[in-house]
């Protein structure tokens, strides 16, 4: 009986109060993202109650057992009540919902490229060119227009810029090009600081001179961080009338990918590490800057642009994308001890437990079953594309039905879309039961009894006294992955909630929508 409840000045600060001997009604919970909530009451004098209520800073609340953290979080909701104080604390996963984040990471869409007018750039002459971004960035001089550098160049620009307030700047771009133009014509790429409407030239990392023959190639260039990039076409000689037909000569850019990282591929762990740096940089007491627990899904993410999104929502999206395994694994993000963000395959840290259920509540429905799917993704112009249909044949045979989902994926990469499709099927091919299990003791495989709070979300629970069923080892009926736990300390009982709770079951559910200020991505193509 050594579970200790204390309030500390901060997560690394000194102890302020030990409430173990006086706390009543202590309950704490956790979900897949870490410690969730803690509530209890403590008798105190009015003065002491207000000291708790009005204490400056954001105290740390922790339940500890022999150095092992059973629960930890921040004292968000103290309340003075008759006879004492009510402690309401929330886990440090909340830190990922404190400050919104805006940043470009990678973008393959051509939708976001704009034609630069002369009011933004004095040498722009868009009226002398024809442009289109129909799955490409295309610019061609108009027949009969005058081009050259007399007085000033007359240039056709396609421009792209980072979101306003982006935490990251562009450092790399890759593209395929096709350039057909006579000599003196130049196709090029330049980088700029400032916005597209008021750009300051930085560098010109790429250019190609016309030769009269079609020139093609693939480029991947890196450069000093900038806020905007422009592809452009111009005639680098004295002014002259352009007499060929419109379209006879052109600069065509395809498979463009703008990145704010020099990494060849963008993996979710790089974004996660940046989020850690961002959040801990603003609220150092709420999140550790250590990234030791962040693993890589090794799945290249082509289209990741975030505008005013909360880091927790970004992480939620990233873990849903799967990884490069076949079939793709489900991933999770969580903040447990020491306020460290963990990004890892779901249940990779799982321990296996056994419980004896006295009154199980189990309900199965195929409403959640999806054993077939195709992904809906986009081409560069934004038009929807669909992958081939994939199905889990065992599930189709077992349940004697095909239930298919169209999985929306925000990407132009068919590879990523296919991966997401397969990750979705892996997750839904066996319908998760609606269930709730309350128990007093956990048993390990040696039959040792453990305190019930050792059970965590992502652990695997097997009800020993339920009959075995057909299917894989985690068949989500007799044996399932825990999604939420709730510990009633006074009764020394814990509740394990699998991935889909009973409709009638009282569960601890934190609605993310209540906390988010904005819930959109910059290019919400669905």
């Amino acid at each position, binding site marked *: 009986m050594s579970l200790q409840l204390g309030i500390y000045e901060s997560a690394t600060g000194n102890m302020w109060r030990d409430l173990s001997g006086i706390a009543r009604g202590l309950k704490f919970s956790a979900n897949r993202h870490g410690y969730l909530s803690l509530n209890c009451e403590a008798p105190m004098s009015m003065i002491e109650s207000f000291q708790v209520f009005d204490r400056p800073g954001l105290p740390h609340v922790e339940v500890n057992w022999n150095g092992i953290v059973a629960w930890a979080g921040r004292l968000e909701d103290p309340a003075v009540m008759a006879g004492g104080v009510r402690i309401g604390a929330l886990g440090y996963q909340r830190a990922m919902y404190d400050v919104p984040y805006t940043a470009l990471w990678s973008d393959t869409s051509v939708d976001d490229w704009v034609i630069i007018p002369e009011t933004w750039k004095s040498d722009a002459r868009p009226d002398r060119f024809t442009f289109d971004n129909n799955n490409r960035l295309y610019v061609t001089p108009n027949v009969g227009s005058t081009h050259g550098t007399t007085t000033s160049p007359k240039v056709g620009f396609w421009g792209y810029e980072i979101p306003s307030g982006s935490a990251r700047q562009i450092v790399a771009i890759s593209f395929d090009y096709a350039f057909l133009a006579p000599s003196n014509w130049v196709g090029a790429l330049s980088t700029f600081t400032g916005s597209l409407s008021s750009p300051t030239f930085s560098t010109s990392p790429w250019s190609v001179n016309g030769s009269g023959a079609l020139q093609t190639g693939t480029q991947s260039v890196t450069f000093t961080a900038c806020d905007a990039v422009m592809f452009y076409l111009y005639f680098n000689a004295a002014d002259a009338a352009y007499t060929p037909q419109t379209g006879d000569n052109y600069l065509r850019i395809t498979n463009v990918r703008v990145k704010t990282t020099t990494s060849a591929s963008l993996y979710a762990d790089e974004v996660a590490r940046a989020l850690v740096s961002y959040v801990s940089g603003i609220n150092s007491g709420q999140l550790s800057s250590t990234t*030791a627990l962040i693993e890589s899904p090794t799945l290249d993410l082509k289209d990741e642009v975030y505008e005013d999104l909360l880091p927790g929502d970004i992480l939620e999206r990233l873990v849903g994308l799967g990884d490069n395994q076949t079939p793709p694994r489900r991933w999770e993000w969580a903040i447990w001890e020491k306020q460290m963000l963990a990004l890892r395959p779901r249940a990779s*840290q799982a321990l296996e437990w056994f419980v004896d259920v006295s009154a199980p509540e189990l309900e199965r429905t195929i409403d959640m079953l999806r054993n077939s799917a195709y992904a809906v993704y986009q081409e560069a112009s934004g038009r929807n594309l669909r992958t081939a249909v994939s199905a889990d044949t065992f599930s189709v045979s077992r349940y004697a039905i095909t239930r298919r989902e169209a999985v929306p994926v925000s990407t132009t990469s068919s590879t990523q879309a296919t991966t997401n499709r397969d990750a979705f099927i892996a997750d839904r091919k066996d319908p998760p039961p609606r269930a709730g299990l309350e128990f007093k003791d956990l048993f390990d495989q*040696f039959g040792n009894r453990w305190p019930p709070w050792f059970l965590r979300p992502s652990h695997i629970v097997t009800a020993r006294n339920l009959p075995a069923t057909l299917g894989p080892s985690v068949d989500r009926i007799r044996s399932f992955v825990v999604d939420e736990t709730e510990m009633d300390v006074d009764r020394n009982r814990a509740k394990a909630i699998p991935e889909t709770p009973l409709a009638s079951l009282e569960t601890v559910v934190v609605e993310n929508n209540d906390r988010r200020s904005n819930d959109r991505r910059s290019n919400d193509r669905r």
Partner: protein
Amino acid sequence: MTVVLKLYDGSTTLNLNDLTNYALPTDDNGTPLWAPTVPMLSESPLSGRGPYEDTIEEIEVHVRGSTGANALAAYAALATMMETALRAQKGEGGIAPVRLQYRPHNSSLGADVQAVVLGRVGMDQMITAPPDLNRADNKEISGVRLRFWVRWKWIGADDTWSTSSATDIGTPVTLTDASTPPQSTSPCKLNISGFNPSTTPTLSAGVLLVGVLPMAQAAESMTASKYTSVSDTTNKAKSGSVLRYTPTDTAFNLSGASTTYNGAARHWLVYATVRNNSGSATWRIRMAQTALGKLIYAPEVPIDASITTPRIVCLGVLAGMEQSTQQFTIKLDIAASTTSGSPTLDIDTLYILPVHNDEVSKAIQFESIDLVGAFSASSTSVSLVFDDRVLTSLTPAVYALKVSNSDKVDTGYKTDPIIFTEGGALGACLIMTGGNSTAHWLFTNSSGTVVQVQYQLVLHNAYISTP
């Protein structure tokens, strides 16, 4: 027949059976009609309240006086005592808990046992007078009812164990006592002496392992590929050397095995002293337990790059074995975040604590204490005290005690700091790093010598039913 039943608030004692001001109801034979409830083991794992549940005591007492006014004064004294108990429970400053003192008829104990009056039951009144309080002859107010929660039933006389011999910090010791073991699991106060502001100006944060004797495993014996033994006597490595992990990749790699442990225990709690020699690389450590033909991994523990000096890390809990003849070994499975910069991770000692009963076997983490700031830099003996305070406060305390004048400075802690014992023997091991140099694996004084400490246990004999 006599039974002792009193209320005591630290200065005033009300004898509920003195037959002058108070008397317990009796039967026709004069037998007092009251007996305490016997507490059962508590369902709640929350600490600070002992292994037994709080119980409700209902005491009916006749209040008397030579006059009605005297009887009313005695009644008022009871009411005041109940209010004091309630104020103490609320933590009002300067108010000690009210104790219920008891000794049954024919008890073999030479002194009263005590428990703490915790407060009211729900919204019930703690004291209720009979409806005829205001009758004409109220020199006897019969049937006054007291009703309240009681905790720490029952604490008897203290039993002070022999002081242990001086032992290096980080070395497990067995504290023994020749007295009769207590009737039930008993709270204790542990005094660890050997500190001095002039030689140990700051006590580092540390961990006290108590219970069944902890075991210290020299990590340098657990060599394997990528794991080597490296001498580090300069920094006071416990056995002179440390186990160094030098990664060639970022995958998990297993060390060699520890000593084989025999052991029935419910769990095995493992701490380690660890040093990250890189200011940038981070690590993940997980224990791998080989038992009954299986290799079982404990959850991984991250080691950040915040410091490059020794630190104390809780590696987690391993499953226990049912039989003492069932054996297991421990390996360390470590992964580095990078091999860039040739990072290494050193481990000096694994401290392994068998946990049968987590009231008795525990690891108490405590915060650092500035002795000079508290007591000035003059040479004076200071002890580190783990004080249960079960009868004097609602919370235990960990503090540095200036022996000469009993000045104290409290420090914070994690995990229940109340030490319990079932008697006979208690294992203890104080783990601290730093001291004269933060680079030291074991806590040193200003001479750079590992500090030696002595342990003295004061056991408060506990009874669930008084003999």
